[in-house]
């Protein structure tokens, strides 16, 4: 019983990530279950949103499916190949196809490396046969593709604004023509006037390059806009998974409902009404999440445990 779409690009099954908690006096050790039994697919060209609160396991899943921090158990199949069983050399080749964009572009950039060298680095590592001129042309093309002036290639990270730095990270991520990008809170650190720019860019790139995204975000408004399907995570488990219209229009799990009803609306009358309604309805007691059940085609909701 799992959410399945035909011919997935990425197929995650029963993924768990546990961290041992050892007592220093040598007593019984236990484990922290950061992620527990998570399964989902991502189709080619699809964006799957992963939402949930801090500590729900969103980023852990992002790092596990890219093998940056491999899972404790479960399988991650990319284009039908199980990544956990790949030898190191083959995994390095696979990395061209799988890229990551992080929240803080400044932390992801090397302050002593020029923007051009940063974007060219994947070519130097993975395409050593490329000549200098060819590489420079490719970098200029990437700059243009993400909306940066190629003349900025000689500049250093501190000379760019936050939005431009995220564009640099995106340019580097698409350099080797990946088919899958994990975007972990890519707009959370950006100014409001810049967020829409980056989301539009991600969407344009998806259309042109046929990319699939795992879009990890706590911005429920942007997730609805950008994602085809959305998985809601709570305490390391998926509590609901559906296409985004269904999830936002017809949320079934009490946690999804609580999350969606907490989003402020930028319309004074509507927002005041929402605050009044919230005041009058007491917070729901949230049950523990059990196995997923398909309540409608493609709409999966966690069974409640112990109710």
């Amino acid at each position: 019983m799992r959410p399945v779409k035909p011919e997935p690009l990425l197929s995650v099954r029963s993924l768990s990530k546990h961290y041992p908690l050892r007592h220093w006096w040598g007593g019984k050790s236990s484990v922290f279950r950061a992620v527990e039994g998570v399964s989902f697919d991502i189709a080619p060209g699809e964006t799957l949103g992963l939402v949930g609160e801090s500590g729900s396991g969103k980023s852990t899943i992002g790092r596990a499916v890219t093998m940056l921090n491999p899972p404790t158990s479960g399988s991650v199949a990319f284009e039908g190949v199980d990544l956990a069983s790949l030898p190191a050399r083959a995994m390095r080749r696979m990395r061209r196809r799988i890229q990551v964009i992080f929240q803080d572009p400044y932390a992801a950039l090397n302050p002593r490396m020029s923007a051009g060298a940063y974007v060219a680095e994947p070519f130097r590592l993975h395409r050593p046969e490329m000549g200098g001129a060819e590489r420079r042309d490719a970098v200029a093309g990437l700059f243009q593709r993400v909306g940066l002036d190629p003349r900025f290639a000689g500049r250093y990270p501190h000379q760019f604004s936050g939005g431009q730095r995220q564009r640099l990270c995106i340019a580097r991520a698409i350099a080797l023509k990946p088919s899958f990008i994990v975007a972990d809170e890519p707009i959370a650190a950006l100014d409001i006037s810049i967020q829409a720019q980056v989301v539009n860019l991600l969407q344009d790139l998806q259309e042109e390059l046929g990319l699939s995204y795992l879009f990890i975000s706590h911005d429920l408004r942007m997730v609805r806009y950008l994602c085809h399907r959305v998985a809601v995570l709570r305490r390391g488990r998926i509590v609901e998974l559906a296409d985004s219209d269904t999830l936002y229009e017809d949320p079934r799990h009490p946690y999804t409902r609580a999350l969606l009803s907490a989003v402020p609306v930028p319309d004074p009358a509507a927002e005041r009404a929402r605050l009044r309604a919230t005041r009058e309805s007491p917070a729901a007691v949230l049950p523990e999440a059990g196995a997923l059940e398909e309540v409608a085609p493609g709409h999966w909701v966690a069974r409640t445990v112990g109710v």
Partner: protein
Amino acid sequence: MTASPPLLDVRDLAVAFDTESGTVRAVNGVSYTLREGETLGIVGESGSGKSVHVLAMLGLVPRPPGRITGGQVLFRGRDPEGHDQARDLLAMPERHLRRVRGAEIGMVFQDPMSSLNPAMTVAAQIAEPLRLHLGLGAREARARARDLLDLVRIPDASRRLDHYPHEFSGGQRQRVMIAIGLACRPKLLIADEATTALDVTVQAEIVALVQELKREIGMAIVWITHDLGVVAGIADTVQVMYAGRIVERGPVDAVFSDPRNAYTLGLLRSLPDLSRDRAGRQRLRQIEGSPPDMRHPPPGDPFAPRNPFATPRCRTEAPPLAQVEGSVPGHLAAAWYDLPALLAAGAGR
């Protein structure tokens, strides 16, 4: 409109920072008033001056590199004899200002973990302003601290008093910060990105809490945020800042439904609609370009280089903040262009 003098009257406040690469004019002539019991939402992005101008009026901008280059901040608080009197916070000696901060103006900042002292129990931290400003004894202050934890809805307050900040969740820590901010029953609470670091459900709880406390205590609030949704729900008045200036200000309903400054409009239009399904959606309307480098702000209206509605005059002369014709009194905007007319004529898509 009542004729009573405002609680806070900011006049032409200007703040600059001297850096190695030049002077940053972070706040450029900000003027506004706040009535007693009013909630003012201040919206803007990093570098807009929204936080810096508040820190400056509370004497919390480090000098150097910061400098207050002009203005007055008249706050109608208690003078040392206990009379209500408007006094200029910028001209006040630090020891008087210290009384105002915490006693008459409460503050809540973004990150409760770095604002709370990890080595002090919450009881001691809530009691500190009570003992310092109200001269309460240890026992009285502790009893008040327990009442305050109750007030901010922390369950089992008596037991929690002796806990340390790390024993509280993120949302509870922000509640403790609010308890400290409200300890002396201030006339004004300033919250600077107070819910930004919190999860959306916790943010909703904190917003609801502040609303309830406002009804109980009746303080005025300055709520600084980049979240237009939060402002829509709690503010009476909204003020949009860009490049160290107020670009639009007015009753929240008027500004949201009839924005007259292009930056305000851009912010409102760049948000995706939560209720719009994917089939009916359009490409997000993005604001082009980046916020200005405040070491070298563009001449004229600082938003002009990003503004599709800009006129030649915008590029040479900064527009004044003036009453909007055809809108409610108190709706002010800084714009040389007539936004509704341009929109009606089909400009800006």
